[in-house]
């Protein structure tokens, strides 16, 4: 049997296609990104090694501040909307006497399966300053309040982030709902018998027990915010001006518009490092909460 499952030729045959493809297309480029970040390179000619000069230049790039700020604003919108509101909706929805739960869950999830381009185009028409749905509604209620949602430097990043938040709400909701449901009913019943209200019971029992779910939800929401690109690429092309730039936007611009491949790789490295730090911090924060609770 050992020989049967240890068939060297079979192992080789099963393994090779996937390993080769993965190594060439996914793994090798990661190494390249790190390596090329130390070069000045236009993608075609000879690359010159310049040490950490790309990173020094990046630190002084005025677009970096804009990009980081937008990344974090984007992340905050996702966290507040998807996780904040999503948790509240999931808790309400878990209640036994909710009617039409299946319909609600399906409706929340439908935007998730749409193409991001469809959603962006749809919201472009919703935000349209003249004929858009939002301004039309204001008009219908007789309010003169109109906004050029996507052209205002302060509002547009929020408006764009909201598009993403709206589309993937159903995904986070499904995760959070599964998290709420994974808490054993008799825990809550015990708390109710002790006289705690339903919402107090949720606050002290359900939410702490959903720690693993929250950890994952925070990681995907915040890393999605920091890496955001597609929405601004489609909806405002980074504008007005450069106000909606993000790190990914900088990568694409430096590489494919101004041919600074080395510099673009340095930005990519920065994006990986920030995402890693965020993931580690989130894990740390949630794990500390646990040990804190055990002490008290």
């Amino acid at each position, binding site marked *: 049997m050992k020989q049967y499952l*240890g068939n060297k030729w079979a192992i080789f045959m099963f393994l090779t296609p996937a390993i080769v493809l993965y190594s060439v297309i*996914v793994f090798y480029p990661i190494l390249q990104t790190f390596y090329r970040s130390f070069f000045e390179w236009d993608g075609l000619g000879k690359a010159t090694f310049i040490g950490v000069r790309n990173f020094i230049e990046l630190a002084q790039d005025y677009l970096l501040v804009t990009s980081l700020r937008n990344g974090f604003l984007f992340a905050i919108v996702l966290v507040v909307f998807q996780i904040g509101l999503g948790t509240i909706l999931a808790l309400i929805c878990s209640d036994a006497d909710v009617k039409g739960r299946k319909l609600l869950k399906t409706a929340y999830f439908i935007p998730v399966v749409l193409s991001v381009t469809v959603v962006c185009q749809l919201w472009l028409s919703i935000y349209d300053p003249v004929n858009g749905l939002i301004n039309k509604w204001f008009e219908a209620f007789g309010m003169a309040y109109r906004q050029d949602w996507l052209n205002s430097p302060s509002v547009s990043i929020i408006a764009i982030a909201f598009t993403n938040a709206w589309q993937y709400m159903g995904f986070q909701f499904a995760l959070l709902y599964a998290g709420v449901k994974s808490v054993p009913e008799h825990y809550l019943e015990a708390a109710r018998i002790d006289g705690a209200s339903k919402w107090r019971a949720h606050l002290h029992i359900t939410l702490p027990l959903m720690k693993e779910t929250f950890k994952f939800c925070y990681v995907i929401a915040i890393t999605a915010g920091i890496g955001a690109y597609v929405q601004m690429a489609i909806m405002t092309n980074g504008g007005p001006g450069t106000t909606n730039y993000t790190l990914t936007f900088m990568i694409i611009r430096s590489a494919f518009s101004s041919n600074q491949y080395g510099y673009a790789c340095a930005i*990519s490295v920065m994006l990986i490092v920030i995402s890693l730090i965020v993931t580690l911090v989130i894990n740390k924060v949630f794990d500390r909460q646990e040990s804190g609770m055990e002490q008290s």
Partner: protein
Amino acid sequence: MNKVVGIVLQCFLWIYFVISVYPLIWMVSYSLKNNDEIFVTNPFGLPTHFRIENYVNAWNKFNVPSYIANSTFVSSVTTLGVVLLAVMFSYAIARLRWKFREAVRMYMIIGMFIPMQVIIIPLAIIVKDFHLTNTYGALLIPYVAFGLPFASMVFYGFLRGIPQEMEESACMDGASIYRAFFRIIVPILSPAISTIIILQFMGTWNEFFLASILITKENLMTLPIGLIYFQGQHATDWGGMGAVMTIASLPMVLLYLIFTDRVERALTVSSAVKT
């Protein structure tokens, strides 16, 4: 009192229901209106007169059929490739016996945590060096490679749960390991395979980022890219745009409505795989 609070809270669920669905209903409605109706006479409500000509126009005058054909082809081939390679790979690391299989598994897992935008530059250069720019290969090869880590981990989890007697009896009967794989293991895996088929097909159908960078020729564009191209040329034709968007969304919405539970479970399982 508690009853009243419960009803008020349930109202929130239905308010979000409207927020989630109304924009889509509005989209389908305006795909059936002309500009005059969208902008002036009937901006919010359902269409009073169904202008199917928006769909006919979108379909006949523009390249929508070609976008759909490209999307269908690319999504199908990608899905097939991912399933085939990932099943073979995960079989080797989950059930065959050799030294470094745990290390190879870890190596593959790394791919799940790499955002596409971080490797896009070297990838674009590789695509160019292999002379794949503006061919189907520019999409198919990266898509399959990117699909492998996740699919492999799902299959791996499933394969670990199958008792070893399966191969033992096949060995006893004198079947080769390949025969055991195709005739016994693959059929047992079919629930996991169908989950991956649905997820991979949907993911590829909707993929925008890579396609937007690697494809510039119009006859190779998939729907998400074609849609942007279409919009650039017909920015003022809202009804036509709405029709194209509805056509692009319909297959995925139907797929989801047919396989609701499976899709949701699969996507939430993906969180378990990643943590």
